[in-house]
């Protein structure tokens, strides 16, 4: 129910109302109007499969681009739906692209499903759909199939989106979380913790005046530039939920190596640091939506850094640490003060401290 594939020449339905009701999920004319008017109109592109329940992709074209398919899915819920630097639609598109990109894949196609709470305004949906279309277009990927469901009030929070992505990994590209070796360097492509801080600040619960913007951005072009200049890249990960702390732990465990980072080298905006200070949060665990961690063989460290810094999304790139043979599976940080501490995985979500 609710598939968005249409015959391009078909007359598109028009919505007559300002809010979504359960009728728009009923499979009838109202649903067609919603899908046509909001989603199809925004995503309009010739690749939308003609009135079928699936997108049909040309194998020959895919095979020419590489020798493996990369396939991923991302469920996106965010409160608020619109925040400085992005919105749920942009987040869904960029997040899915990034999941493909850090595997070395060229992202090509997206599938998106929206779960809509009854009572959500059509205007809001339009904005989100346009944002998705815009983000996809900028990134050069196509949204080729989708679905919508409307659920009763309270069954979801306004709007949930899931996006799946398909990409192709060029021959010879081999990135693996278990490939880190002692001596490798650890790089990040820019300022950390911005998305997490922006979302917390945008919720407005703590009446803090701040102007932090989410770093939400598609990273596939940056990755392509990096891989072209630095073949010694062994592993890439996007540092989303759980921040770079979590990603580094995953790599340390998968590769059975230790990782030591230097707090003084971790790039961070003053505002993000101050914000964390006040709330008792650790910025290393804050989510990013446009940051990746790269593990690179030592001989290619400079090339990798130069490649990242040459790209607008990597201007603030830094070498933040090294892979070691000490304490395999552990991440240790040299603190600003010069002491050391373990940077562990979080038990649950970060909770603000009271004193």
């Amino acid at each position, binding site marked *: 129910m609710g598939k968005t594939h249409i015959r391009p020449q078909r007359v598109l339905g028009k919505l007559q109302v300002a809010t979504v009701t359960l009728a728009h999920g009923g499979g009838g004319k109202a649903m067609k109007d919603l899908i046509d008017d909001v989603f199809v109109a925004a995503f309009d592109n010739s690749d939308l499969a003609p009135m079928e329940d699936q997108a049909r992709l040309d194998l020959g074209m895919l095979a020419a681009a590489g020798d493996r398919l990369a396939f991923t899915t991302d469920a996106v819920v965010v409160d608020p739906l619109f925040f400085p630097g992005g919105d749920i639609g942009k987040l869904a598109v960029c997040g899915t692209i990034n999941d493909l990109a850090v595997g070395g894949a060229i992202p090509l196609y997206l599938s998106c499903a929206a779960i809509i709470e009854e009572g959500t305004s059509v205007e809001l949906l339009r904005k989100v759909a346009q944002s998705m279309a815009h983000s996809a277009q900028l990134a050069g990927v196509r949204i080729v199939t989708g679905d919508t469901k409307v659920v009763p009030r309270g069954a979801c929070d306004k709007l949930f989106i899931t996006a799946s992505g398909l990409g192709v990994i060029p021959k010879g590209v081999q990135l693996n979380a278990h490939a880190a070796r002692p001596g490798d360097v650890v790089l990040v492509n820019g300022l950390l913790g911005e998305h997490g801080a922006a979302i917390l600040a945008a919720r407005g*619960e*703590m009446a803090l005046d701040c102007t932090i913007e989410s770093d939400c951005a598609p990273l596939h072009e940056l990755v392509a530039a990096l891989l072209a200049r630095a073949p010694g890249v062994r592993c890439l990960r996007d540092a989303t939920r759980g921040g770079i702390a979590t990603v580094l732990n995953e790599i340390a465990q998968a590769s059975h190596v230790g990782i030591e980072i230097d707090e*003084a080298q971790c790039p961070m905006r*003053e*505002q993000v*640091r*101050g914000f964390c*200070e006040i709330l*008792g949060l*650790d910025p290393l665990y804050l989510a990013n939506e446009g940051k990746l961690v790269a593990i690179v063989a030592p001989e290619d460290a400079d090339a990798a850094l130069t490649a990242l810094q040459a790209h607008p999304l990597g201007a603030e790139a830094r070498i933040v640490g090294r892979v070691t043979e000490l*304490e395999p599976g*552990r991440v*240790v940080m*040299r*603190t*600003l*003060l*010069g*002491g*050391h*501490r*373990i940077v*562990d995985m979080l*038990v*649950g979500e970060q*909770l*603000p*401290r*009271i*004193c």
Partner: protein
Amino acid sequence: MKYVDEFRDRDKAAALATEIEKLACSIEGGSTPIHIMEVCGGHTHSIFRYGVEELLPARIELIHGPGCPVCVLPMGRVDDCVAIAEQPNVIFTTFGDAMRVPGSRKSLMQARAEGADVRMVYSPMDALALARAHPDREVVFFGLGFETTMPATALTILQADREAIDNFTVFCNHITIIPTIKAILDSPDVRIDAFLGPGHVSMVIGSAPYDFIARHYRRPLVIAGFEPLDVLQSIWMVLKQIKEGRCEIENQYARVAAAGGNVAALQAIARVYELRPFFEWRGLGSIDHSGVRLRPEYARFDAERRYAIPNARIADPKACQCGEVLKGVLKPWQCKVFGTSCTPQTPAGALMVSSEGACAAYYQYSSAKQRTGARG
């Protein structure tokens, strides 16, 4: 926000560490350890977060005190919170870090997952705003913490009183640090040579309440700020007192904590609260006059009077050695259950509960090597 880095500078830290080392060597007693307790959980957090212990000479041993209000919250009290939160029509509001503290049946986090309306707030005024916005609901604020958070709760109650808001109550679990320091000093196996005093508490109460520690118990105390360099400087000041044979209350944190405290805050505290005859602390047992409750004049804001509260005393598990760790008799990792049946996911004792608790901090921040190496 630039100011914070001044207090975390590596060169300054190294210079201070050298001074501390020199001073520690010059104090009589050869290599006998000097035990310094930092009373406040904020210090414990800072010490682990920045790896301060690594910069100290082996002779100095830090004992991580009871000053984490979340850690010392007895399990029975968490059960009471859950019982209130599960009443129909209640919105139960709390500071974030109390959400995960395990009760005997469940935490507030679990209660919320099961349908209770539990909400995280950043101040009691946020809870009062919720009460205003939802006149048909009963909003309960979980008042928790030392003198640091006590005034804000008191001012909120006074505000609710002025506005005659009748759907707002406070479940008061505020505690006071002085009787607890005294209880620790009175216990026979205590090993503490000096104290770092809690900066934020002192900001409210001033320095006079600590006088008995120097006068009666002959221990130096330095009121310390929370940045790692504050902690180092305070340790240096404490050592200087020991070296010179002085026992005084000194203030390293004068940039924030005035000697006389905060008069307006103290007045609000005096107006709203009275001392309880005793209060139960997790890991330490019952301590006389260590908690406060609302005065009878503010009874209508008292959740303890509005709701039937189970008020059960749940004993800590037998294997739990939090008391010994708090008094400095044991290091956290020497506890029988550390890291086995007591971990941050499944805390058996108080000190494993929040990141300010000593056991949780060791578990989370220090490696096996650091635990057993020279710094052990």
